């Protein structure tokens, strides 16, 4: 899975942190850990989230996935609302907690062992089925809509993953840009500190 992860091997956004405003720097650097103990997720739930996140964001690196996990825990333990929720879908805390139980049950039903012990292909096939809302019938799906469960898991994970500075470096994103801003914004132009491609790459 760790093929060419970046077109910008020489770029490290954290080298620019001195140019960021203090408030932004504090927010971004906290994503590097260490993270406090989970407030909502239980041990087994955290392990499942960690494994599912590997598949959703297509990455194995513990330091990044730990942040994804931390963000998930933060989201689920926060009193802040969830913007929108489809009628008939339970609150996110219930959706995720009961949803993870249902995923384990589905794994056992289809393959024997619980989710964490089945093969990667089997895990992916369960996630694909949930995404499409086509998992084998179980009474749980009446209260835990499959697609809503998948979407909540995936968007929360992806939001955290693409907020991690290591990932920003890899995709060549300029990241925080205040107070400096950009001077050269037109086609083909870059400011000296922006990500530059490997000269050998076409």
């Amino acid at each position: 899975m760790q093929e060419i992860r970046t077109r910008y091997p020489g770029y490290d956004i954290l080298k620019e942190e001195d140019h960021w405003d203090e408030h932004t720097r504090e927010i971004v650097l906290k994503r590097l850990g260490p993270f406090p103990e989970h407030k909502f997720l239980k041990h087994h739930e955290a392990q499942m989230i960690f494994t599912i996140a590997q598949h959703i964001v297509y990455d194995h690196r513990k330091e990044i996935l730990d942040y994804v996990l931390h963000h998930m825990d933060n989201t689920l333990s926060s009193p802040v609302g969830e913007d929108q929720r489809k009628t008939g879908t339970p609150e996110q805390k219930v959706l995720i907690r009961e949803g993870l139980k249902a995923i384990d049950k589905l794994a056992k039903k289809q393959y024997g062992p619980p989710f964490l012990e089945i093969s990667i292909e089997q895990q992916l096939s369960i996630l694909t089925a949930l995404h499409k809302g086509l998992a084998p019938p179980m009474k749980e799906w009446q209260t835990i809509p499959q697609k809503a469960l998948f979407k909540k898991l995936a968007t929360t994970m992806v939001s955290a993953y693409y907020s991690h500075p290591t990932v920003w470096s890899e995709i060549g994103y300029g990241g925080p840009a205040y107070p400096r801003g950009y001077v050269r914004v037109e086609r083909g132009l870059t400011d000296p500190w922006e990500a530059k491609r490997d000269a050998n790459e076409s």
Partner: protein
Amino acid sequence: MPTNHDYVLHNCDHYDGHRYNHLDKRKYGDGADICIVGSGAAGGVLAYELSKAGFEVVVIEAGPFWNPQTDFASDELSMQSLAWNDTRLVAGSDPLGMGHNNSGRGVGGGTVHFTGVFYRFHESDFRVKTLDGVADDWPITYQDLEPYYEKIEKDIAVSGPKHFPWGPFQGPYPYPEREPISANAQVFREGCERLGIRSTVAPLAILSAPFDGRPPCINRGFCNQGCKPNAKFSTLIHHIPKAIGHGAEVLSDCMVTHVKVDKSGEVEGVTFVHDGKEYFQKAKITILSAFCIETPRLLLNSACPQFPDGLANSSGMVGKELMTHSGHDIFAKFHDEVRLYKGTPVLAVSQEFYETDASRGFVRGYTFNAHGARPLGLAKNLVSKAGIWGQKLYDIMRDYNFHAQITLVGEVLPDKNNTVTLSNEKDEYGMPRPVVTFSYGGNDNKLIAHAVQKANEILTAAGGQPSFVTPDTGHLMGTCRMGNDPSTSVVDHSCRSHDIPNLYICSAAAFVTSGGCNPTETVMALAARTADHIIEEAKKL
């Protein structure tokens, strides 16, 4: 959580020379001339115009009084807090994304995290029934709003091209157009040029040169996260501080839960909650500027024996005909980097497809904005709206810098089945959560298909390879529409409620149709016109 959040030092009561973190020293605690609920685009303009005219004005705002320097960050994830995050229930065949997608919370409302693209509506937008036989005409015309468009543009120094080729206003704008434009905007303009489609630099509520003590834009691209340098207009930094200078009082972190009617059937004032405690604000005139979900929710939640179906609702139209804009994002991949993160997100636009063209098989039209994107926003849309995840998502994101984007702002026709109603679920204030129901109609879907194809043609002409489309929406309008007929509309041509003479409803909620472009200049022009009407009415007394 960051430690240095300030919310203007966590105060909730603000008036000239005073800021308090409690409500014991309220300036207009015994009553005001005018109470405005919501301090967004409309509420800000109303507060400014009415306090300047000498009225005693109190503004009540559910969210914080932000301090851009300490509360805003150059970061997508943390700045989702600028949005109305309270859970809304959504339904329909095309359920709407809420939160950051369309709703602001806090002083400045949606203008704090809006993109600043600033259009006037066209003449045809006010007459769609007459011209196209759909929806309804507005009770006002373009000419009624024209002086207010002009005033708003001057007041906040809108920047834009010398010549704007579409609609009745052809420029020039008060401030020069932005220069240089971003690579994404260049790509868009090149594609348009090759196809003979006219395009221009975007008209923006963003400074191209210093104005009113504020600096020009530094192109950092975080307009949707709140502008730290204050180059982008918001009512938080423009109208509200000026209103305070003219004597207005702003109560922040105060959620209005009820509009109270007296025995004579007039509004007496509003009940609001701060820190778990209930307060009352008395006023001679109440104006609801709480946008398109909270306004109908408040009116419906204020039902009382005199008005059992909710206030201002004798027509049954409160909460009906909610509109959005179809906002599909169309992407193409290029051989060279475009870098969507750089520069003001929208710097080039086209309204070539704005007006009805019978040959297209649908009525009304749309605007194209060449639109920047940041990693979280893009990846989240890919997973939640286009259903792309895992390796496929990763592959696209690795080439993030090589993508260009065009965003559609498509007119959506009003439909009585698109509604805001009350659910049985209660929120932290004990108010029923709203249910927001939305489905596209046939005309809307044909318009989208046309626009997606055109956008792909433009990107292809510019040398790109169409790669993916994320279905999206932008903006909200309607739910308390204007009209001349009290049996089919909620407010009259001055945004005054047909049923209750001292109740006004003035925000995007008053729109009759959505238009095919970003709506906020029209929201603000409408507010300035309503303020003039209130000032004129007062002179008659």
